[in-house]
Protein backbone atom coordinates (compact mmCIF):
# COMPACT_ATOMS: atom_id res chain seq x y z
CA UNK A 1 0.00 0.00 0.00
CA UNK A 2 1.06 3.53 -0.68
CA UNK A 3 1.63 5.51 2.52
CA UNK A 4 1.18 9.27 2.20
CA UNK A 5 2.75 11.71 4.65
CA UNK A 6 1.78 15.36 4.52
CA UNK A 7 3.46 18.50 5.74
CA UNK A 8 2.51 19.85 9.12
CA UNK A 9 0.10 22.51 10.34
CA UNK A 10 0.84 25.99 9.09
CA UNK A 11 -0.38 29.43 10.12
CA UNK A 12 -0.26 32.17 7.52
CA UNK A 13 -1.50 35.68 7.01
CA UNK A 14 -3.82 36.73 4.19
CA UNK A 15 -1.91 37.51 1.03
CA UNK A 16 0.96 35.17 1.78
CA UNK A 17 1.93 32.28 -0.46
CA UNK A 18 2.07 28.66 0.66
CA UNK A 19 3.03 25.25 -0.61
CA UNK A 20 2.07 22.07 1.22
CA UNK A 21 3.43 18.66 0.37
CA UNK A 22 2.43 15.00 0.22
CA UNK A 23 5.17 12.38 0.14
CA UNK A 24 4.60 8.79 -0.87
CA UNK A 25 6.60 5.90 0.54
CA UNK A 26 5.44 2.99 -1.59
CA UNK A 27 6.57 1.89 -5.04
CA UNK A 28 3.45 2.99 -6.91
CA UNK A 29 3.58 6.74 -6.32
CA UNK A 30 5.11 7.58 -9.69
CA UNK A 31 2.24 5.84 -11.53
CA UNK A 32 -0.53 7.15 -9.32
CA UNK A 33 -3.02 9.95 -9.48
CA UNK A 34 -2.94 12.14 -6.40
CA UNK A 35 -6.07 14.02 -5.41
CA UNK A 36 -6.33 17.02 -3.13
CA UNK A 37 -9.41 17.30 -0.92
CA UNK A 38 -10.36 20.28 1.22
CA UNK A 39 -12.42 20.15 4.39
CA UNK A 40 -13.33 23.52 5.86
CA UNK A 41 -14.24 23.72 9.56
CA UNK A 42 -17.62 22.15 10.15
CA UNK A 43 -18.15 21.48 6.46
CA UNK A 44 -18.03 18.57 4.08
CA UNK A 45 -15.21 17.46 1.83
CA UNK A 46 -14.52 19.13 -1.50
CA UNK A 47 -12.57 17.61 -4.35
CA UNK A 48 -10.05 20.19 -5.53
CA UNK A 49 -8.36 18.33 -8.34
CA UNK A 50 -6.06 15.50 -9.30
CA UNK A 51 -2.58 15.20 -10.75
CA UNK A 52 -0.93 12.22 -12.45
CA UNK A 53 2.50 12.02 -10.88
CA UNK A 54 4.11 10.34 -13.88
CA UNK A 55 3.66 13.27 -16.27
CA UNK A 56 2.06 15.98 -14.07
CA UNK A 57 -1.19 15.93 -16.04
CA UNK A 58 -3.60 17.97 -13.93
CA UNK A 59 -7.37 18.14 -13.73
CA UNK A 60 -8.95 20.84 -11.57
CA UNK A 61 -12.46 20.99 -10.22
CA UNK A 62 -14.16 24.07 -11.67
CA UNK A 63 -14.43 25.70 -8.24
CA UNK A 64 -10.69 25.51 -7.71
CA UNK A 65 -9.39 26.26 -11.21
CA UNK A 66 -7.13 29.30 -10.95
CA UNK A 67 -7.23 29.30 -7.14
CA UNK A 68 -4.48 26.75 -6.49
CA UNK A 69 -1.75 24.99 -8.40
CA UNK A 70 -0.98 21.29 -8.16
CA UNK A 71 2.43 19.91 -9.05
CA UNK A 72 4.45 16.75 -8.50
CA UNK A 73 8.04 15.52 -8.58
CA UNK A 74 8.16 11.81 -9.28
CA UNK A 75 11.89 11.63 -8.55
CA UNK A 76 11.25 12.35 -4.88
CA UNK A 77 7.73 10.86 -4.72
CA UNK A 78 6.14 14.13 -3.66
CA UNK A 79 3.07 16.06 -4.71
CA UNK A 80 2.45 19.71 -3.90
CA UNK A 81 -0.42 22.13 -3.53
CA UNK A 82 0.41 25.82 -3.91
CA UNK A 83 -1.34 29.10 -3.24
CA UNK A 84 0.07 32.42 -4.45
CA UNK A 85 -2.11 34.60 -2.22
CA UNK A 86 -3.98 33.03 0.66
CA UNK A 87 -7.34 34.24 1.91
CA UNK A 88 -9.05 33.59 5.22
CA UNK A 89 -11.53 31.43 3.35
CA UNK A 90 -8.70 29.01 2.53
CA UNK A 91 -8.59 27.93 6.16
CA UNK A 92 -9.19 24.22 6.43
CA UNK A 93 -7.69 20.77 6.44
CA UNK A 94 -6.22 19.62 3.15
CA UNK A 95 -5.84 15.94 2.42
CA UNK A 96 -3.94 14.25 -0.34
CA UNK A 97 -5.15 10.84 -1.43
CA UNK A 98 -4.17 8.30 -4.06
CA UNK A 99 -6.15 6.94 -6.96
CA UNK A 100 -4.84 3.94 -8.89
CA UNK A 101 -6.44 5.33 -12.02
CA UNK A 102 -8.65 8.28 -12.86
CA UNK A 103 -11.98 6.51 -12.34
CA UNK A 104 -11.20 4.73 -9.11
CA UNK A 105 -11.67 5.31 -5.38
CA UNK A 106 -9.21 6.99 -3.04
CA UNK A 107 -7.38 3.98 -1.64
CA UNK A 108 -4.76 5.74 0.50
CA UNK A 109 -4.98 9.05 2.33
CA UNK A 110 -2.52 11.39 3.94
CA UNK A 111 -3.07 12.47 7.53
CA UNK A 112 -4.15 15.97 6.49
CA UNK A 113 -2.48 19.37 6.65
CA UNK A 114 -4.20 22.10 8.65
CA UNK A 115 -3.87 25.50 7.01
CA UNK A 116 -4.93 28.43 9.18
CA UNK A 117 -5.08 31.82 7.49
CA UNK A 118 -5.54 34.66 9.92
CA UNK A 119 -4.37 38.20 10.40
Amino acid at each position, binding site marked *: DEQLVQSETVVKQPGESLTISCEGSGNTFATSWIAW*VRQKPGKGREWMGVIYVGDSDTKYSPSFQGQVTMSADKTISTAYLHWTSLQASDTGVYYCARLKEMSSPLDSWGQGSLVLVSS
Partner: protein
Amino acid sequence: EIVMTQSPATLTVSPGQSVTLSCRASQSVSLDLAWYQQKPGQAPRLLMYGSSTRAAGVPARFVARGSGTDFSLTIRTVESADFAVYFCQHYNNWPPYTFGQGTKLEV
Protein backbone atom coordinates in the same frame (compact mmCIF):
# COMPACT_ATOMS: atom_id res chain seq x y z
CA GLU B 1 -21.97 18.60 -10.72
CA ILE B 2 -23.43 15.49 -9.15
CA VAL B 3 -24.74 16.15 -5.64
CA MET B 4 -24.37 13.34 -3.11
CA THR B 5 -26.86 13.39 -0.25
CA GLN B 6 -26.40 11.23 2.82
CA SER B 7 -28.95 10.44 5.49
CA PRO B 8 -29.27 10.62 8.35
CA ALA B 9 -26.68 13.17 9.44
CA THR B 10 -26.33 11.42 12.79
CA LEU B 11 -27.23 7.90 13.82
CA THR B 12 -27.29 6.88 17.45
CA VAL B 13 -27.00 3.16 18.12
CA SER B 14 -25.83 0.70 20.74
CA PRO B 15 -23.12 -1.89 20.18
CA GLY B 16 -24.63 -5.08 18.83
CA GLN B 17 -27.29 -3.34 16.78
CA SER B 18 -27.32 -3.24 12.98
CA VAL B 19 -27.55 0.05 11.12
CA THR B 20 -28.05 1.20 7.55
CA LEU B 21 -26.69 4.44 6.12
CA SER B 22 -28.02 5.95 2.92
CA CYS B 23 -26.34 7.83 0.06
CA ARG B 24 -28.23 9.23 -2.90
CA ALA B 25 -26.80 10.74 -6.08
CA SER B 26 -28.56 13.51 -8.01
CA GLN B 27 -27.96 11.54 -11.22
CA SER B 28 -26.78 8.04 -12.00
CA VAL B 29 -23.22 7.15 -11.04
CA SER B 30 -23.63 3.52 -12.11
CA LEU B 31 -21.59 1.41 -9.66
CA ASP B 32 -18.86 4.04 -9.22
CA LEU B 33 -19.50 4.66 -5.55
CA ALA B 34 -17.14 4.39 -2.60
CA TRP B 35 -17.65 4.55 1.16
CA TYR B 36 -15.08 5.82 3.62
CA GLN B 37 -14.75 5.74 7.40
CA GLN B 38 -13.11 8.55 9.34
CA LYS B 39 -12.40 8.63 13.05
CA PRO B 40 -11.50 11.82 14.92
CA GLY B 41 -7.94 12.92 14.27
CA GLN B 42 -7.37 10.21 11.69
CA ALA B 43 -7.19 10.08 7.92
CA PRO B 44 -10.19 8.64 6.10
CA ARG B 45 -10.06 4.94 5.27
CA LEU B 46 -11.52 3.33 2.16
CA LEU B 47 -14.18 0.81 3.18
CA MET B 48 -16.08 -0.10 0.03
CA TYR B 49 -15.82 0.56 -3.69
CA GLY B 50 -17.57 -0.44 -6.86
CA SER B 51 -20.72 -0.02 -4.79
CA SER B 52 -20.36 -3.34 -2.95
CA THR B 53 -16.74 -4.53 -2.86
CA ARG B 54 -14.98 -4.45 0.49
CA ALA B 55 -11.51 -2.93 0.57
CA ALA B 56 -8.64 -5.00 1.95
CA GLY B 57 -8.99 -5.77 5.64
CA VAL B 58 -12.59 -4.54 5.99
CA PRO B 59 -14.66 -6.90 8.15
CA ALA B 60 -17.51 -8.84 6.60
CA ARG B 61 -20.01 -7.07 8.88
CA PHE B 62 -19.81 -4.13 6.47
CA VAL B 63 -22.17 -4.67 3.55
CA ALA B 64 -22.86 -2.15 0.81
CA ARG B 65 -25.23 -2.26 -2.11
CA GLY B 66 -26.89 -0.10 -4.69
CA SER B 67 -26.54 1.21 -8.22
CA GLY B 68 -27.51 4.25 -10.21
CA THR B 69 -28.63 6.82 -7.68
CA ASP B 70 -29.42 4.92 -4.47
CA PHE B 71 -26.82 3.29 -2.27
CA SER B 72 -26.62 1.94 1.24
CA LEU B 73 -24.04 0.81 3.74
CA THR B 74 -25.13 -1.65 6.42
CA ILE B 75 -23.06 -2.43 9.47
CA ARG B 76 -24.21 -5.70 10.97
CA THR B 77 -23.66 -5.95 14.72
CA VAL B 78 -21.98 -2.61 15.35
CA GLU B 79 -18.82 -2.78 17.41
CA SER B 80 -17.20 0.00 19.45
CA ALA B 81 -14.52 0.42 16.76
CA ASP B 82 -17.20 1.34 14.23
CA PHE B 83 -18.21 4.63 15.81
CA ALA B 84 -16.99 7.18 13.28
CA VAL B 85 -18.10 9.37 10.39
CA TYR B 86 -18.99 7.56 7.17
CA PHE B 87 -19.09 9.37 3.85
CA CYS B 88 -19.76 8.35 0.30
CA GLN B 89 -18.12 9.57 -2.90
CA HIS B 90 -18.78 8.96 -6.58
CA TYR B 91 -16.07 8.59 -9.19
CA ASN B 92 -18.22 8.34 -12.27
CA ASN B 93 -18.31 11.66 -14.08
CA TRP B 94 -15.44 14.15 -13.93
CA PRO B 95 -15.43 17.02 -13.16
CA PRO B 96 -15.63 16.81 -10.30
CA TYR B 97 -15.98 13.74 -8.18
CA THR B 98 -18.07 14.71 -5.17
CA PHE B 99 -18.58 13.61 -1.59
CA GLY B 100 -21.60 13.23 0.60
CA GLN B 101 -21.74 15.33 3.76
CA GLY B 102 -21.28 12.29 5.96
CA THR B 103 -23.19 10.34 8.60
CA LYS B 104 -21.88 10.34 12.13
CA LEU B 105 -22.40 7.02 13.88
CA GLU B 106 -22.45 7.54 17.63
CA VAL B 107 -23.22 5.61 20.75
